[in-house]
């Protein structure tokens, strides 16, 4: 699975770059930083059925950082929820792929997001429903490091701790950059793991581009009983495209067709 999963992450990254070039707008940096996390979930861990996206016993996924929608869409398309050709319609009028995830439009999208800070509460609600119904699904939520500046994230962190929602596994895509600059300059978020520990969470910190580390962390999170789990992922914004890596300006700017082609060549050469 290792090499196969690596191939999938390359395919996802190539899709992301091409989609955004086709759209002429969007968020490459944070899509590329979250790609390995999302790939591990959709191609290794999640119990899902592309033919039955509303399956009651499926694992759930909430993309708190909804602007990374291209990464989610790429995973869903490759996984078979909709045709890969459709990816190139993103952000266009009439497309099923809005700029930010929309559960009413896109097969496989479990929750509409885009307004930062709301996803973790929704994930908690999904886990509570599973508890009420006696279902054993997992609920995954990927947040951005800038996103956790939102107060609602910490309300939700408190709730998940209080209710001992051990079916919730959250990720913080800690690429260190947000629109206005570095987290450390805009609004410091560290120590992220200690904050979650204080709210009663099982906490890990890993290299968010190491597929084996992500895999092991998810297994460890599942083994932590009685408390929710967060995996703080050290990532690189724009990961995989050298001219985008760690450059804050690539947060919300689409590549040109020429830049996209150069990026795809680089991604596929790795």
């Amino acid at each position, binding site marked *: 699975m290792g090499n196969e999963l690596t191939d999938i992450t390359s395919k996802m990254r190539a899709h992301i770059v091409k989609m955004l070039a086709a759209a002429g707008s969007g968020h490459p940096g944070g899509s590329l930083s979250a790609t390995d996390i999302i790939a591990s979930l959709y191609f290794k861990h999640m119990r899902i059925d592309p033919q039955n996206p509303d399956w*009651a016993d499926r694992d759930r996924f909430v993309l708190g950082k909804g602007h990374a929608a291209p990464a989610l869409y790429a995973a869903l398309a490759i996984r078979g929820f909709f045709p890969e050709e459709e990816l190139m319609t993103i952000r266009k009028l009439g497309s099923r792929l809005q700029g930010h995830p929309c559960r009413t439009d896109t097969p496989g999208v479990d929750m509409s997001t885009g307004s930062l800070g709301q996803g973790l*509460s929704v994930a908690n609600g*999904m886990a*509570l429903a599973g508890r009420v119904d006696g279902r054993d699904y997992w609920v995954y939520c990927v947040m951005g490091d800038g996103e956790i500046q939102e107060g*609602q994230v910490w309300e939700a962190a*408190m709730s998940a701790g209080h209710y001992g929602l051990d079916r919730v596994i959250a990720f913080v895509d800690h690429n260190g950059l947000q629109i206005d600059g570095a987290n450390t300059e805009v609004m410091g978020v560290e120590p992220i793991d200690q904050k979650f520990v204080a709210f009663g969470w099982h906490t890990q910190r890993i290299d968010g581009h190491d597929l084996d580390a992500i895999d092991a962390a998810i297994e460890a999170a599942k083994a932590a009983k009685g408390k929710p789990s967060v995996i703080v992922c050290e990532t690189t914004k724009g990961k995989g495209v050298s001219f985008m890596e760690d450059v804050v300006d690539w947060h919300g700017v689409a590549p040109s067709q020429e830049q996209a082609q150069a990026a795809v060549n680089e991604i596929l050469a790795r």
Partner: protein
Amino acid sequence: MNSATREAYGAALKELGRTNPNVVALDADLAGSTKSAGFGGQNPERFFDMGISEADMIGTAAGLATCGKIPFASSFSVFVTGRAFEQIRNSVCNADLNVKVVGSHAGPSCGEDGSSHQAVEDIAIMRSLPRMTVVVPADDVEAYAATMALADYEGPAYLRVARLASPTIHEEDYEFHLGKGDLLRDGSDVSIVACGMMVPRALDAAKALAAEGIEAQVVNMHTIKPLDTELLTACAKKTGKVVTVEEGSIVGGLGSAVCEALSESCPVPVRRIGMPDCFGTSGEGNQLLDHFGLTADHIAQAARDLC
């Protein structure tokens, strides 16, 4: 009978806990006041007190709704609609989820707690949201029936209930029809369109007007969105004069909704009675209704001015 609409909401919610396994309830540390506590005592496995965190409560309710639950999320109106407005917008309405937002202690009848706790803007902001249904029951019988109806209705909804006890106007066998106004009294001279605890006061005003020879229609417009424009237009055509009455701001509330509809279907003179673009203040609930002119006398005077 003659109890607060929040009491009837709590009783209906408790009954739903017994009869509908999909109903879940959430509160933000006000379960005793919003009356969701009765459900919580009876169905603790389906009741979630989220603490004082309205935004998280609404998001959690949305998550529950994605899994087929029918969440009733209650708090004081000013907090649940105001603090959590954008969560209601994005995580509930934009996501098209079956969440029932219940705002208690709405309007100046909330009383002694004062202006910080008296929602005047809730109807306006809730009805501005696409997909949202807005219901303001007139009495306890209607609040019970509306709660039951909203559990059966699939989609986002806002239910506004009051702290203060108010007169019961409906018989026990009253049937609530979502989106359909009730013509409680007919007349040919003026139409009084009211919601919430203003409805009994509108009926009192109509009685006083009748003694003077002015025949007033009284409409209980319990569903402010979707508005019953058919009934409203028929009333305006018949009387040519409309008075709206609500226990909230005339900016964006029932009065605005009526004016918007009639300006397109049957433009007639309208007088809006409600909170005149102001916040409330402390005082006893009924005393405050008098203070802000939310009285039968004031309604009757507005009708006379039009006639």
